[in-house]
């Protein structure tokens, strides 16, 4: 950790020498990751790196250059390059100018214990889990990562922002001769992760995954565990809820705000303040982060905006700008689905005949973004549920479904929600749900 004072000192020194309006963003830190398979660590890495984004303004033209060196001359060279880029661009009528000083509502994202959780401690945790799985004759694969990073932003208008972040994420894949199961956990505080119960959960589920049969494609009642919804949310953040997909007309929300697209029991929102959402209080151009309701009781309610996108749409910026120079527009990074009043156990108990899916794999949401049509596979455990009980392990299935249709046919949502981190940057907090008439289109065989 470099620390707030030191980073902002470097940024402000560089801004003091800047030729004109300039904003500098620092992002980076240390990340460590341990990977294992067959109950043995096979990859164990640590990296320290950061990116300094120098954004300069020439009238309404913006130039961005990046470097991974903090030395004075490296930042100065990036500023020169950014100015050269800005001067060669056409005027941008949507450029809103740089922000002045802002007030931010704090979020809790840092824990010292996580920052110090080194390779030896990760190996110790894993050894115990490997031993536990070995009692059943099972082996374990997965990854266990910890990271500690900082975001700092300052500009010539006097804006200053800083946030330290830590994250601990573990994925446990337990394998038997014929079965496989997975359990995941994420927290900014590694001590919040209950490794024993996580391992027990994956081991218990792996025991069920044997004697798989193939089920023919068709429409089934499905019970999706939270990990499935995390994949769907990540796709929706890009294809539906982001400013670029909305403004270009590709989102199902484009021109349809206020219309009903899902069932009354579905509410989706982006919030940096949800526990473990790992949200920053500000976005990467310094706008204070807002909670944005995207779907409210099934009705299309909103999308997220950066400042330029908001100006184009005649809307207010919501604090969801991405890194400078990126073409992707604003994206919701902390997507949450409102909980229901059921539980996974109650859903299984109430299911006459259906399919329980643990995880989705390789989801793709580009098929028809106006219908949120997606395809993907099931993974890490697919089960037949009959008369309220799991009765049979199934071969993985391909599904192809409109999420608008699926989210219109939800009959139960769990009270409990789980947090998932994807790529260390996209977070979702999602429940389990039971959906009627979900379409499966193929089977894994070969």
């Amino acid at each position, binding site marked *: 950790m470099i620390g707030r004072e030191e980073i902002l000192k470097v940024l402000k020194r560089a801004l003091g020498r800047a030729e004109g309006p300039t904003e500098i963003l620092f992002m980076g830190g240390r990340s460590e*990751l*341990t*990977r294992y*398979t*067959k*109950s*043995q*660590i096979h*990859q*164990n890495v*640590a990296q*320290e*790196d950061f*990116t300094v984004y120098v954004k300069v303004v020439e009238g309404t033209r913006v130039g*961005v250059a*990046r*470097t*991974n060196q903090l030395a004075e001359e*490296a930042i100065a060279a990036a500023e020169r390059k950014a100015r*050269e880029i800005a001067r*060669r*661009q*056409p005027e941008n009528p*949507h450029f809103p100018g740089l922000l002045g000083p802002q007030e931010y509502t704090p979020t809790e994202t840092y824990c010292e214990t996580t920052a110090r959780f080194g*390779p030896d401690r990760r190996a*110790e945790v*894993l*050894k115990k889990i*490997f031993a536990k799985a070995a009692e059943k004759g099972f082996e374990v*694969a*997965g*990854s266990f*990562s910890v990271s500690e990073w900082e975001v700092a932003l300052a500009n010539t208008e006097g804006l200053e922002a800083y946030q330290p972040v830590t994250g601990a994420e573990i*994925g446990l*894949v337990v*394998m038997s001769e014929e079965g496989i199961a997975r359990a995941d956990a994420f927290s900014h505080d590694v001590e919040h992760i209950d490794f024993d119960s996580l391992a027990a959960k994956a081991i218990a589920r792996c025991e069920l995954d044997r004697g798989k049969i193939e089920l023919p494609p068709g429409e089934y009642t499905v019970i999706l565990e939270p990990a499935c919804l995390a994949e769907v949310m990540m796709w929706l953040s890009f294809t539906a809820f982001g400013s670029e997909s909305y403004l*270009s007309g*590709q989102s199902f929300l484009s021109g349809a705000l206020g219309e009903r697209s899902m069932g009354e029991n579905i509410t989706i929102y982006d919030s940096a303040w949800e526990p473990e959402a790992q949200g920053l209080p500000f976005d990467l151009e310094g706008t204070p982060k807002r909670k944005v309701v995207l779907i409210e009781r099934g009705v299309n309610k909103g999308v997220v905006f950066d400042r330029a996108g908001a100006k184009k749409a005649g809307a207010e910026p919501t604090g969801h700008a991405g890194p*400078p120079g*990126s*073409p992707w527009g604003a994206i919701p990074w902390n997507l949450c689905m409102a909980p229901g009043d059921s539980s996974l156990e109650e859903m299984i108990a109430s299911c006459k005949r259906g399919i329980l899916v643990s995880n989705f794999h*390789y989801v*793709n949401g580009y*098929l*028809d*973004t*106006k219908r949120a049509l997606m*395809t*993907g*596979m099931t*993974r890490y455990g697919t089960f037949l549920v009959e008369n309220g009980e799991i009765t049979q392990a199934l071969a*993985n299935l*391909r599904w*192809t*479904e*409109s999420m608008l249709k699926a989210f219109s046919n939800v009959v139960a949502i769990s009270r409990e929600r789980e947090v998932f981190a994807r790529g260390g940057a996209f977070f979702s907090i999602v429940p389990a749900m039971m959906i009627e008439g979900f379409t499966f*289109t*193929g089977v*894994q065989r*070969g």
Partner: protein
Amino acid sequence: MEVKAWLLEALDDLKRTEGVVYADARYLERETESITVRNEEVAGLSHEETKGYGIRVLYRGSWGFAASGVLKPEAVRETARRALAIAKASYLTQKKPVKLDDTPPQRGTYKSPWEEDPFDVSLDEKLELLFSAVRILRKDKRIVKAEGAMQLFHTRKLFLSTEGAEIEQEIVESGAGIEATAVEGREVQRRSFPTSFGGNYAARGYEFIRSLGLVKNADRIREEAIALLSAAPCPVGEFDLILAGDQLALQVHESCGHPTELDRVLGTEISYAGGSFLTLDKLGKYRYGSEIVNLVADATIPGSIGSFGYDDEGVPAQKTYLVREGILVGYLTSRETAPVIGRRSNGCMRAESWHHIPLIRMVNINLEPAPDGPTLEELIADTKHGILMQTNKSWSIDDLRLNFQFGCEIAWEIMDGKKVRLLKNPVYTGITPEFWRSCDAICGKSEWKIWGLPNCGKGEPSQAMHVAHGTAPARFRKVRIGSGK
């Protein structure tokens, strides 16, 4: 280069450390320029410079890796110490020590071929090229999004090892593409050129960008996107399928490239990217495809982004068969994995940047053209009733690389040897070996072209790799078309 001396010193210290059986160090510096123009504005434009080093240590048969961008001698020493400490932590769970193959340490240099350094070309000229194409795409108001994108890379790498390897490489890469999105009511259609998701890429200079014909093809791409708005939906059922070269490149990538990565086969990607149906027992005898299917891993093709002089553990670039006459005969390997099948590495270990560990990655994975194979026109003429699909739109494949479903941007129905109508939203699905066994025609060399993909994802932390696929259009019999929706 000062950092070379610091890294050599660190490797020397590691070599003298008890228990260290091997160590290597990579220093990399890269300049990147990314430009995206969208409608009338520059939507994204950034220039990046990054430099740093990664040190990999094998301690009593267990790996550790640490990387840093701090270019100071004490930081290099600290990074080496951290890599060793991490390797010692890995050793705590060791069941079977890693043993490397006997590839002799290499000393050499490599420079990719380029005529015009893309970083010497003015930004004005690059923007004008993209805006010229975008202006043509926007001539119809139903094109709500017209985009042009370009990415340029200049990479210098140094590889050193305790075995005495010393390799310097310099690689320039360029790529660009255009895309038109048409919207009418609730209908959204997209066309891209030369292919989707950023265009085509090569390990060449700006002369490659000039050769792409972005402006020349913009009219056609716009018209195709508009025509798709009112095209008939692709029918559902079993049809003969002809895949154009760019879609076939993705098919090769997903259903041959990834499942032949030996680290996947051995289970080290099982918790992320997945495993492989091409298990070790199948090597040398498994019928992967029909007799006309020959797939080769070739890192020696000049100017392709899957090419290099040496991989990131110092193994020289090679050409090896993966599938010969339809039979599985090889894998993509590393110095650690090749001995498992009794071979020496075929040089497929690459890292995205200095802070990533090398993993087995695709190089140029090519479907060989058929000797005296037909042209695409001849192949269409030889097809009684089928569907021709072009340019990837969506992709999904299971964790063993068996069940796939791909969507394309555009398709045409073929009746009695002629393209008779345009089709929208084409999707095909299948099981990998059944699909490749149904391949009954591959076009000849005149249709063969290399497609560069700059964004192959794999590994944790995730790494995006530059890979490529040489393909000529091919025909597959009785393929399931349509998703069943």
